[in-house]
């Protein structure tokens, strides 16, 4: 059975900007033992970042690895010539990662991964970038190691968006949209307002985002270029302007508008700015999510009395109901495998994150807190982030898509909500 871990990992290591600190609450039974030895540093002063620590925390957070503690390492090799496999075999370590960071005008990391039992080097690599990118270089090494040892592409070198609300009843509330690394570090507030911000979402290019802002005193969809900081108000229709979702090719945006009466799903061509109405029903139709082929959309509708997930073919308008388990299902999204549907499910007056296999139909509840919402799946489909409550505080939490691994990302202040996991950034 699952092993309950009570590990508190300080991933933010002295970075005052970072807001979220990860606490792993549940890991797997037999995680792979790996030693990530502190990397050698050559350059001015001390190393600006503990790269080995970044990698070690990444692997631990996946739930599939148990990194060896520094105190339990019998030797601290940083070069292949210094590796004595017996030091690691003696403590049942399965894999060993060593490396060297060289600092100058830029940063270069060289690293090697060894299989202790086979006594062989299984992978090596070289990463370079600026000092500010050092953590990201570490995440890329985590991605390579993860893929080598699990066969699954890693999603550590990705970013997340989330909204932090400081609700005030005696003064104007503040709402912040933040982008951070997937581990919560290097957070940066990219937009702040006294009016609500919601539904942040990534374009497939990983550079453009869309979200809903009430800054005009009404909801409107905005595009925001993360590189330039340039914002553009995309919609200003009467009524609802919400739930933006980029198509897989990035050329269109599905959204919810109520300009023609009740909330319906529309698709906006981002090039021609042509708007196409997709659903036409007096009930609530909202929360569109694209199927991988870009030809149909999943959406939430209460046309049957209570919210359920439906699928509509954009060209023909043909609509079919997708969820039948439980009286209340909403906010569907699809994992990269094209068949794992992630949603929010209400049962016995509690809201949980659940997954449904679109082919087999089987539904599995992944979370056990009572007010879980806004699930967002990692681009490799391994984990999903969601929003929940810890006491009266809104926090982010993560769970593996099979339910086996769980961790929380509590914030220091404010209600954190609506995580959106970026697509893969850069080349595979």
């Amino acid at each position: 059975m699952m092993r309950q871990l009570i590990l508190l990992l300080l991933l933010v290591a002295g970075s005052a900007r970072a807001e979220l600190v990860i606490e792993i609450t549940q890991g797997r039974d037999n995680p792979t033992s790996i030693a990530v030895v502190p990397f050698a540093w050559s350059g001015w002063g001390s190393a600006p970042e503990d790269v080995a620590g970044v990698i070690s925390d990444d692997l631990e957070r996946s739930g599939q690895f148990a990194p060896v503690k520094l105190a339990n390492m019998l030797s601290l090799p940083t070069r292949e010539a210094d590796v004595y496999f017996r030091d690691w075999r003696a403590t049942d370590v399965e894999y060993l990662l060593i490396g060297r960071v060289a600092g100058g005008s830029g940063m270069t990391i060289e690293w090697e991964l060894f299989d202790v039992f086979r006594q062989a080097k299984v992978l090596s690599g070289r990463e370079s970038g600026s000092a500010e990118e050092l953590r990201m270089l570490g995440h890329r090494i985590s991605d390579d190691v993860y893929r080598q040892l699990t066969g699954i592409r890693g999603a550590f070198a990705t970013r997340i968006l989330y909204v932090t609300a400081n609700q005030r009843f005696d003064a104007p509330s503040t709402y912040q949209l933040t982008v951070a690394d997937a581990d919560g570090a290097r957070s940066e507030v990219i937009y702040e307002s006294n009016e609500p911000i919601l539904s942040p979402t990534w374009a497939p290019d990983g550079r453009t985002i869309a979200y809903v802002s009430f800054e005009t005193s009404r909801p409107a969809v905005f595009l925001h270029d993360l590189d330039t900081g340039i914002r553009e108000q995309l919609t200003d229709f009467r009524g609802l302007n919400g739930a933006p979702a980029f198509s897989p090719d990035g050329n269109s945006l599905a959204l919810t508008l109520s300009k023609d009466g009740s909330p319906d799903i529309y698709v906006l061509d981002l090039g021609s700015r042509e708007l196409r109405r997709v659903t036409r029903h007096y009930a609530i139709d909202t929360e569109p999510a694209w199927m991988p082929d870009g030809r149909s959309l999943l959406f939430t509708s209460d046309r049957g009395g209570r919210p359920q997930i439906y699928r509509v073919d954009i060209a023909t308008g043909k609509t079919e109901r997708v969820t039948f388990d439980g009286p209340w299902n909403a906010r569907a999204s699809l994992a990269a495998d094209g068949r794992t549907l992630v949603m929010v499910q209400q049962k016995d007056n509690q809201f949980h994150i659940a997954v449904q296999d679109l082919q087999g139909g089987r539904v599995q509840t992944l979370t056990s807190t009572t007010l879980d919402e806004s699930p967002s799946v990692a681009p490799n489909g391994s984990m999903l982030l969601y929003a929940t409550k810890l006491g009266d505080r809104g926090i982010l939490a993560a769970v593996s898509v099979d339910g086996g691994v769980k961790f929380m990302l509590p914030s220091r202040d404010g209600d954190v909500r609506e995580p959106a996991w970026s697509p893969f950034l850069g080349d595979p």
Partner: protein
Amino acid sequence: MKHFFDAVSMTKALSVIFAVLFTVGCASTDTTDADAQAEADAAEARKQQQMEADKARMEAEKARMKALEDAVAAAGNVVYFDFDKSTLNSATRRVLDAHIALLRENNGSVRLEGHADERGTREYNMALGERRAKAVADYMAVNGIARYRLETVSYGEERPAMAGSSEAAWSKNRRVEIK
């Protein structure tokens, strides 16, 4: 106001005195002058009467408007809903009726802000808040308030009136605010 009417009375008293003095001073004037004087006095009296009637009407109107405003103040600016519902119950209708009675007397616009509690997904709650605001707008429109005066906007669950995750907080947050 009181001073104004005192001034009117004063003016009236003075004009009577002047009229008497004038009459005495012009004892030799003919009857045409006397008739004209009588007419002027009558006109003055009518004017006075009219002013008093206007004043009474104004006072009555003011009292009626105040009653309507008091009714709105007593009813409050917020109506509440059941979970996942946008139906107006009789208590809600009574509140809205008070607002409608006042709105019929002016040309002001109303902003109807729909809200949901924190349960359920955010965008669905945004739609639910709009449905509630529209239910209120429909009721007002049916009762004679022109559509162009009614603006609806939904804040979903983004702006709770009360913090916390209790039924007490939730019931305060499922609401439409009349602004």
